[in-house]
């Protein structure tokens, strides 16, 4: 048992508080009583309310006929009706002695006022006061309870008791918000002048809802003449100002422009916004300046509102301001609004740009739009031109696409180079044009070769004058003449239209190139000039250009006698001799046929020949057109020590180009420089002796070709009366005729450049040389030893020639388009 008792010993895990049972009973009774009491109160009050409602409904049923009788009583009623009316009046007076009946009657009238309109409603108002029910409402105004006061004000307002106006308006600035708002509405409702009194006296804020209710009251007024609300724009109560602005806008009182403009500067954004809205609605144009002034310090929504207003009242001079916003404003909405505002003032200023296919040419359309303002005839003509332009643009795009299709890294570099080159040229020319009216400044054409132009200058200017002038004057003159030529080239290249570019223009472009005479024996073996001359013959030149060329040729006649390169004999000089003969033959041919274009082209070639010969006259041992010395530009800006160092460098890296430059340094004012230049010149000439011998051999080739067959040997048949022909055909003897003109040296040099894959913008002519070479080879009498091989290769050459001729237009177009 003990074990069991131990086993089942209870363990106190939970311990409940020891509460007396009586207390629990007491609490139970208490809460039950409270519950019963609560339900009893609910029951009692509900029954009371129900009983009261029932009593009111019953009383209403009793009073409703009386009220109906009073409401629809007619003065022209019958005697019975009059008797009934008087009887009811007495009866109701007895009823009104009971407050409950007064209360019920008031409720009835208030309800009927809601459901009836017209004359019946006015009778209700009259009946209300006739029954002196409004006295009860006045009593309510004296109550300390805000809800009672509010009910009294509402009752008096609804029953249109005008006598209550004086009592109610005192509550306009009441501390109790509900009473105050009820009084504000009552004041405005009861009398028309209530709005003025309210705006004058109110000190508290006017909520948005309250403003709407007041506005609704005013709107429903009949025969209401609103006061000039601008009077309250100066109120110290910002809500009054705001409400006045809204009332001004509602009643279109647009005689407060000055105040509106001032309120745009208000610190309160709500007032500012409302003033801007008024300015927009009334079209206050003089407010634009103020709007622009305050724009910076406004919030985004106000900025948008200002821009919207400017779009309505702005003018063209405001676009600049809008552009400034567009550039400086970071907010997207404001920027977008600025664009729309600009477009509102000046339509179509900004057109859609996003997602637009820019490859589609729109020039034609734009031109059409512009031409609409011109005369009809002009329109028709322009439309034709525009169609051509569009076709050309389409061709250009097509060509560009073709070029892009064939792009490879090599061509890409060339194109990039050409683009950079043209941009730099444009910039230089622009700068030159700007400085033309001022003074002649240094033209930064450092990157351009000047030697060819320098020689041209020598030919046109008295050599003595040139020698006596300083270096800077030379450079300026050279650069000015250069500038004109560059402008012409730019204009032609910019057109990008192969069809429109005449070959005469292409020839003029070639003037830009330096005429370098490098007599390389290997290159001279290539016969290039014939095809080149053929191309020149095909060039069509305008009459004006021809006249200019004639002037040049006349100028050449005034120059000293042309000196050709030294005549030397060489056995392998047949090809070169052929070139020279062909040249003169073409001259004769062109003169005979009267082809002015050909003559002009040939005159150009002759002009270069003369320039070269002039140079040779100065120094027979060194050809003139070696090229441009890079050291010439470096010498312009450096000091004496640097010049001496550069002279050493000339000896190290210099070639023929530096020889001429060194000669100019012999006359340098600095004796050190001139002495060292003389020394370097001698050393350089010694170093360049092999090159000189090469050139000498080339000249020997030319002179050794006297006995060669010449299909164009009728040179002497040319008309010598022409000054042009005098210049070209006035060669001293046959030996001189067989000499290689410097033009071919240029071509030869170009060919060598082409061989080195140094293609550039004027690569076109170099490529022509391939065809010219083949043509000349075919025209040449075959050497006896090479006769068989020549016969075999002739077919191949002819085939490639035809292919080149066929492909020539396409290549020409591609090269011109860059």
């Amino acid at each position, binding site marked *: 048992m003990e074990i069991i008792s131990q086993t089942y010993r209870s363990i106190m895990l939970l311990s409940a508080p020891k509460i007396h049972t009586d207390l629990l009973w007491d609490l139970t009774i208490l809460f039950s009583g409270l519950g019963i009491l609560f339900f009893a109160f609910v029951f009692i009050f509900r029954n009371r309310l129900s009983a009261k409602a029932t009593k009111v*409904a019953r009383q*209403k*049923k009793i009073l*409703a*006929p009386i*009220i*109906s*009788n009073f*409401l*629809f009583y007619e003065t022209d009623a019958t005697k019975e009706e009059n008797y009934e009316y008087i009887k009811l009046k007495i009866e109701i007076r007895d009823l009104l002695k009971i407050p409950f009946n007064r209360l019920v009657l008031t409720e*009835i009238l208030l*309800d*009927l006022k*809601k*459901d*009836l*309109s*017209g*004359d*019946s*409603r006015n009778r209700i108002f009259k009946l209300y006061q006739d029954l002196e029910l409004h006295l009860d409402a006045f009593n309510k105004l004296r109550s300390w309870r805000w809800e009672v006061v509010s009910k009294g004000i509402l009752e008096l307002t609804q029953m249109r008791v005008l006598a209550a106006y004086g009592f109610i308006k005192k509550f306009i600035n009441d501390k109790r918000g509900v009473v105050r708002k009820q009084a504000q509405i009552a004041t405005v409702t009861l009398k028309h002048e209530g709005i003025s009194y309210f705006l004058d006296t109110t000190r508290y804020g006017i909520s948005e809802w309250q403003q709407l209710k007041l506005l609704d009251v005013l709107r429903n007024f009949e025969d209401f003449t609103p006061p000039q609300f601008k009077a309250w724009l100066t109120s110290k109560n910002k809500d009054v100002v705001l409400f006045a602005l809204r009332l001004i806008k509602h009643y279109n009182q647009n005689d407060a422009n000055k105040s509106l403009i001032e309120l745009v500067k208000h610190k309160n954004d709500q007032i500012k916004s409302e003033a801007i809205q008024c300015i927009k609605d009334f079209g206050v144009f003089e407010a634009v300046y103020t709007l622009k002034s305050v724009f910076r310090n406004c919030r985004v929504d106000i900025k948008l509102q200002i821009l919207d207003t400017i779009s309505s009242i702005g003018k063209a001079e405001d676009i600049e301001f809008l552009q400034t916003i567009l550039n400086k404003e970071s907010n997207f909405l404001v920027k977008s609004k600025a664009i729309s505002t600009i477009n509102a003032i000046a339509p179509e200023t900004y057109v859609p740009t996003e997602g637009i296919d820019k490859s589609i040419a729109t020039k034609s359309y734009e031109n059409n739009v512009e031409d609409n303002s011109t005369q009809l005839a002009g329109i028709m003509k322009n439309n034709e031109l525009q169609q051509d332009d569009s076709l050309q643009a389409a061709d250009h795009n097509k060509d560009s696409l073709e070029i892009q299709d064939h792009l490879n890294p090599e061509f890409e570099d060339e194109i990039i180079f050409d683009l950079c080159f043209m941009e730099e040229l444009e910039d230089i020319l622009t700068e030159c044009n700007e400085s033309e009216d001022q003074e002649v400044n240094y033209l930064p054409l450092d990157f351009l070769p000047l030697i060819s132009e320098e020689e041209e200058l020598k030919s046109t200017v008295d050599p003595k004058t040139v020698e006596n002038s300083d270096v800077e004057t030379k450079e300026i003159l050279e650069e000015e003449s250069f500038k004109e030529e560059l402008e012409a080239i730019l204009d032609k290249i910019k057109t990008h239209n192969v069809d429109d570019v005449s070959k005469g223009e292409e020839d003029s472009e070639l003037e830009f190139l330096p005429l370098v005479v490098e007599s390389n024996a290997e290159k001279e073996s290539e016969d290039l000039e014939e095809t080149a001359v053929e191309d020149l013959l095909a060039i069509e030149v305008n009459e004006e250009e021809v006249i200019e060329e004639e002037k040049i040729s006349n100028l050449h006649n005034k120059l000293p006698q042309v000196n050709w390169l030294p005549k030397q004999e060489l056995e392998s000089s047949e090809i070169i001799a052929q070139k020279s003969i062909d040249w003169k033959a073409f001259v004769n041919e062109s003169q005979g046929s009267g082809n002015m274009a050909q003559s002009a082209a040939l005159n150009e070639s002759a002009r270069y020949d003369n320039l070269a010969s002039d140079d040779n006259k100065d120094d027979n041992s060194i050809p003139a057109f070696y090229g441009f010395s890079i050291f010439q530009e470096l010498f312009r800006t450096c000091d004496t020590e640097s010049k001496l160092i550069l002279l050493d460098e000339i000896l190290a890296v210099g070639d023929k180009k530096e020889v001429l430059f060194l000669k100019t340094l012999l006359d340098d004012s600095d004796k050190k420089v001139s002495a060292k230049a003389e020394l370097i010149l001698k050393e350089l000439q010694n170093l360049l002796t092999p090159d000189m011998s090469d050139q000498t051999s080339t000249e020997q080739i030319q002179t050794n070709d006297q006995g060669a067959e010449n299909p164009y040997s009728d040179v002497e048949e040319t008309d010598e009366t022409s000054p042009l022909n005098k210049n070209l055909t006035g060669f001293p003897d046959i030996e001189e005729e067989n000499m290689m003109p410097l033009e071919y040296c240029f071509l030869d040099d170009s060919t060598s450049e082409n061989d080195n894959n140094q293609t550039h913008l004027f690569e076109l002519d170099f490529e022509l040389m391939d065809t010219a070479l083949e043509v000349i080879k075919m025209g040449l009498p075959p050497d006896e030893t090479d006769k068989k091989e020549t016969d075999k290769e002739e077919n191949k050459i002819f085939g490639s020639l035809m292919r080149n001729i066929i492909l020539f237009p396409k290549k020409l177009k591609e090269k011109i388009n860059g």
Partner: protein
Amino acid sequence: MVNKNLLLAEDDELLASLLDYRLQKGGYNVHVANDGRDVKEYLKTATPDIIVSDIMMPYFSGIELIDYVRNQLNSKIPIIIISSAGNEENVLSAFELGANDFISKPVSPSELLVRVGRELIKK
């Protein structure tokens, strides 16, 4: 116009009493029904010359009343609708179902009297 039977269906007793007084004064025999059930009961037993009904009524709305009269009773009794302002959808529905006229609250008893007389003349 005298002795024409008029059914006034209006749940607001006060307004119904007032209109009743005015219509009776205008010479009509007015039967006031305060809800839709009363209307239905009355229509089973009598055929008024004209019905003036509020749209919003308990148990049986004015729209249902029109449908009941037009489709179930197949009657062409003129029906004038009384509706609150802004309750345009119901008014349109009432006209689609066959209501003859419409008057909005607050009601002018004199105007209602004129409209009732006009509808009876049309009939």
